[in-house]
C-alpha cells in the first residue's frame, strides 16, 4: 500500500521532507520509523490526518503520516 510520510525538524536531515512510500498492509507507525532508521525514543509526535497516534497505530492505504522529533516552543 502507499502512504505519504512527512518528516520535520531534524528528522529531515539526510532523509526527506515528504515522500509517497510503499509499505505492506498492517504496517505500524513503529515499522515506518524503523524503515527510516529513526529510534523509537527520538519520536516526539506522530500524526495521521492531523490526529495524534502511537507507535502501535496501524497505518492504512492513502493516509498521511507526519513525524516530529521532540520539539517545543511557545
Amino acid at each position, binding site marked *: 500500500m502507499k502512504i505519504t510520510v*512527512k518528516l*520535520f*525538524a*531534524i528528522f*529531515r536531515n539526510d532523509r526527506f521532507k515528504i515522500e509517497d512510500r510503499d509499505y505492506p498492509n498492517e504496517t505500524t507507525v513503529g515499522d515506518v520509523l524503523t524503515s527510516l532508521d529513526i529510534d523509537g525514543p*527520538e519520536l*516526539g*509526535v506522530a*500524526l495521521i*490526518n*492531523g*490526529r*495524534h497516534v502511537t507507535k502501535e497505530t496501524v497505518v492504512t492505504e492513502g493516509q498521511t503520516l*507526519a513525524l*516530529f*522529533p*521532540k*520539539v*517545543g*516552543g*511557545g
Partner: protein
Amino acid sequence: MNRIFRVNMKDLTCKIEEVPEAWAGHGGRGLTSNIVAAEVPPTCHPLGPNNKLVFAPGLLTGTPAAQSGRMSAGAKSPLTGGIKESNAGGTSAQQFAKLGIKAMIIEDQPEAGKWYELHVNNNGVTFHDASALKGVQNFDVIAAMEEKYNPKIGVCTIGIPGEERLLSANISVKDSDHKIRSHGRGGLGAVMGSKGIKVITIDDSAGKRVTIADPEKFRAAAKIFAKAMLDHPVTGEGLPIYGTNVLINILNEAGGLPPKNFRYGQCEHHDKVSGETMHDVIASRGGSTKHGCHAGCIIQCSQVYVDENKEYITSGFEYETVWGLGINCMIESLDDCARIDNAMDNIGIDSIEGAVLLGVAMEAGVLPWGDGKEALRIMNEEIGKATPLGRILGNGTKSVGDAYGLTRVPIVKGQGIPAYDPRSVKGIGITYATSTMGADHTAGYAIATNILQVGGHIDPLQKEGQVELSRNLSIATAAIDSCGMCIFIAFPALDIPECLPALIDMINARYDISLDGDDVVALGKSILKTEKAFNDAAGFTNADDRLPEFFELETVSPHNAIWDFSPAEIDEFWNF
C-alpha cells in the same frame, strides 16, 4: 536583593526602603502582582496618577542559575483593565539584582508634557530632563544612552506609541547585543508614558555579586538543573536549532494553526515561514540560529535574522510573531515578516498584539491580506507616529474591531489571542479564557500536553481533562514566573524528575530556607488568587472568563472543531 526603590514622579524623589516581611519570599511576578494588589486601587484609571509601574527581578536572578535573568514588570493594564505582569529578557534584571534592588515601584505622574530619564544606580534614582528624546524611537534611544554613558548601560525605553499612551505599547529592554527584548503584553509602555518616563537607564558598576547562603548546595543544584536543560530534547536540541518557530509545522499538521484572523486551522503556505525554513534561511545567509536573550541562557531559543548581505533585520523572532504576520495576516515573505517585527521593536509595540490587530485591520479592509509592504508602512508611519488611524490600530485588537464594527475579533479581556486556535487545541482555550492577564498562551501552556506530548498527552480536541490541565499549568507557571526563570524550563520540568527539585534547591540554597514542592504549588496558587481578587475588585466577573462568541458559532477546519465549553465548565478552573 534587599532594597525597594520607591520612585515618585510628581515630586521627583526616590526613597530607598527595606523589603517588608510580607514580600520577602516573593520575586518576579509574585512580587509585582502582590505590590500592585496591595498598593494600586483596582478601579483606578490605568493611565492616571494612582496606577503604579513595578519592576522586579526574579528570586534567582543574578545567581549563576541557568535561565534566571528575566525581569517582571507589573501594573494595572490599560489594555485589559486588570492586573498585568509581563516578563522579559535583556540586561535589566541582572543589573537590578547586582544593585540589590528587589523591586522598583514607580508612582504618580508629573505635569503633562514633561519627559524624564530615570537613572538608576547604587545610590538610588536621579531624574534627568529627556525632552530631547521625545519623538525618538527605541533603537535611537538606546544609541543615545550608550553615547551618553557607555555601551554597558542598561536601557528600558518606550517609543512614540508609548509616549502617546497607545494600548499596544510595550517597554523595550536592551539586551547584551544592544538590541531589544520586550515587556510586551498589556500596554505597559502606555503606563510608562503616562508617568512621563521616556527611558530608564541602569548603571550597575557599583553593584555586587548576589550573595548565596549555601554556595555548595547551590552549585550542586545548579548543575543538575543545567543538565536537565541540556538533556531534554526540546531545550537541548529543538529550541536552539529551530527556535520557537519550529511550532508552525506541528500546529499546522495538528490543525491548530489559525490563518486569516482565525478562519481555518491550517495554512497552505505554512512551510514558507516555518522554523525549518527560517533555520535554513538564517544559516545560508550567515546569521545566527542560536542566541540568548540574557547572559546565562543556555537554551538559546533566539536567533539573529539577517538579509542577503548579512545585514541585521531582527532578532527574537518568535513563533507567535511569525504566526501573527506570516499566517494570521497571510504575509508569505519571511523577510517582510522580519522587517515588520523589527519595526515593532523600534516603535515599541507588542509584537503579538501588533500582529493580531493587523489581522483584524485586514478583515476590516484597512489593508489587503498578505500585504507585507503596507503592513510595514502602517507600523512605521501610522502606529509609529500615532496618526489618527495609527491610534485606532495601535490601541489594540479590540479598538480595531470596535472602530470597524466587526465580530471576528480574537480577544479575551481586551487582549489579542495568539497563535493557537482554541477550538482545536482546547486546553489553551481554557487558559485564554481564565488567565488573569487576558488571552495569554504563556499563562498555562497547554500546547505542551495537547500538541507536543510533553508532560503526558491530553487529546486537544476533547474537553475532558483540559480545565485541570490548564489550572495545574497556570499554578506552576505563576511560581516559575516568580523565579526570574524563562518559561521554557517547563519542558524539562514536566519530563525530567530531577529538574523541579533542583530549582527548589537553588532557591533554598540562595536564601537559606527550606521550601518543598508543596510550598511552590501554594505560592503559585496564592499568586493566581491575588491576581484574580484584584481583577474582581476592578470589576471583572465570570463573564469575562469567556472566549469571543465567534468561536462558538463557527467550526474550524480540518477537524470541524468548535468551542463548546459551558460557562460552568470554564468556571471550574478557579476551583482550587
